[in-house]
Every structure is written in C-alpha cells, then in structure tokens.
C-alpha cells in the first residue's frame, strides 16, 4: 500500500521502476502466504525480475523524468475512486475466502483433485490443470506472449521509410 502511494507520488521514473519491483516482491510474499507457490514464483521471476529489467531498458530510450502535470486531474481521480468503491462494495457479495461450499470449490475442482494423479501420473496439481485439463487456455496464454512479443519487436524495429519521411530522426526513441 505504502509502496503503491510512493509509486504514484514519484516523479523520477527510475525510482518508479525500482519501486514496482519492490511491489512485485511484496506481492510474491503475499502469494506465498496464501500457499500459491506457483503464482508466487511467477510473480517474483516475471514481475520483479524480467519486467524490471525491460522497464529499465525502455527507460534507456526515453527520458527518466515524468513531466509534472499542469493541473490536478480531478475527473480521473473521481472515476478511479468510484470504480474502486464499487469493486470493494461488490466484494461483500463474494463468499468468504476458502469456503468449501462455494461453486468454485464444488464444480470441477473435486474431480481434478480426485483424478489428476491417476489420469496423468503428475504430482503437481497446478501443472496437471494448466497443461492438461486446461491445455487450451495455456495454448492461448503462450500465443498471447508470442503475439505481444512480436508486436513490441515490430514497434521497436519499425523505422522504415515512413517514420523518416515525416522528419523524425531514426534515432529518436521517444515514441517507444
């Protein structure tokens, strides 16, 4: 929470990137506490590790300071507060965390827990669900990573004749 506020208040983008890494590590610890080791591992590796490095590399292309805003943004703040309040209000309709009688714990999860080990001889239930029962979703996820990567690569390499004809010097990385 404090880290988030610090991120918002920080004008130096280098500080923002480092604080975002700190935030990711804190989230990873929270996920560890919830026994979601797989997700915690991903958060620590992706959120704190690689994304910090990539953001620093992106910072290398742009200026390291954010321009101060001319006037306080009242309407965005109101919208953000309103949406946040609505979401918090909606959480009161959710069942208590970890309750056994909820649909999410009643529908397919018992089947997975019962059958995963004898269906595919795999000890880690998360791997069994991700790669087998929900294999199609994971294929989609990999495709998302692939598409996003291709998109960014195209953006970063796209210094064809179009950008030079408009008088932007090719080395100007401000658009990235």
């Amino acid at each position: 929470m404090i880290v988030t506020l610090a991120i918002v208040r920080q004008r130096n983008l280098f500080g923002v990137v480092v604080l975002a890494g700190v935030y990711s590590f804190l989230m990873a610890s929270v996920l560890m506490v919830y026994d979601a080791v797989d997700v915690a591992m991903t958060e620590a590796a992706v959120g704190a590790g690689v994304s910090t490095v990539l953001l620093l590399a992106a910072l290398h292309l742009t200026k390291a300071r954010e321009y101060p805003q001319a006037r306080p943004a009242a309407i965005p703040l109101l919208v953000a507060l309103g949406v946040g309040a609505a979401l918090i209000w909606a959480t009161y309709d959710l069942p208590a965390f970890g309750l056994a009688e909820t649909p999410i714990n009643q529908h397919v999860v018992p089947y997975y827990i019962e059958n995963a080990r004898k269906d595919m001889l795999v000890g880690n239930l998360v791997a069994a669900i991700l790669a087998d029962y929900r294999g199609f979703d994971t294929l989609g996820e990999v495709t998302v990573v692939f598409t996003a990567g291709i998109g960014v690569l195209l953006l970063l390499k796209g210094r064809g004749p179009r950008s030079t004809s408009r008088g932007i010097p090719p080395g100007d990385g401000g658009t990235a």
Partner: protein
Amino acid sequence: MKHDLILRIGVRLMIPFMLLFALYVQLHGDYGPGGGFQAGVITAGAVIIYALIYGIEEAQRVVPRRLVEFLVPLGVLIYAGTGVVGLLYGQNFLDYSVLSADAPHGRERGILFVEAGVLVTVSSTMVALFYAFSERGR
C-alpha cells in the same frame, strides 16, 4: 559495467546455477512448483544478466538474435503441434493420451512437451525484447 571485476566473476559463477535451476524448475514442474513460464523467465534472466555485465555483443555471440527470433514462434508450434498429434490419432485437439501406450503416461509426456513449448516461447520472447530495447538505444 564491463570492467567491474566483482560483477564479472560473480555473474560468471551464478549463470550455471541459474540455468541449472531453470532446468530443475522446468523438468520438476510436474512434481513441485514451477513449469514452463517460470523456467522460461529464469532462462531469459540468465541471458539478460550476461548481456548486462558482459555487453550485448558478447551475449549475442552466445545467443544470436536470429536464433532467438526463430525460437519465439517455435515454442508455440511445439505446443500446438503436440495438440495436432492428438488430432492425427483421431482424438481431440490437445488430447495427450495417444503419446504413449497407456493414457496416463501419454498425458504425462504431453505435459512435458507442452511445457517445453512454453519454455521456448517465453524465454526467447523475453530475450528478444531485451535485445530489441538495448539495440534501439544505441
């Protein structure tokens, strides 16, 4: 950072263990926490830290950019191809039970292949992005 002795030696000591740990996370993902995504990111991390300390040219001598950009779609193809094998044997798409004589072993093997595809795509995408950013900056 090329001339910092401590960083150079420290990274040189760390990278083998990082790659080994990535391999462990990848192959042991069936039994412990981990899998293709995590292992891919750790692998990419090893390459990126090498590039950070030893310079991007040195890293591209080890892991050429063309190879990385070839691997990005290859991982998706490995994943989807594993699914297509199921189709060819007359089962559903991504039904791995045909990959071995009995269904449970086949599904275990299918998970292995699929995770390998995830590893290839995730790690090469991360490295390709890092290369693209750092080359653009020069």
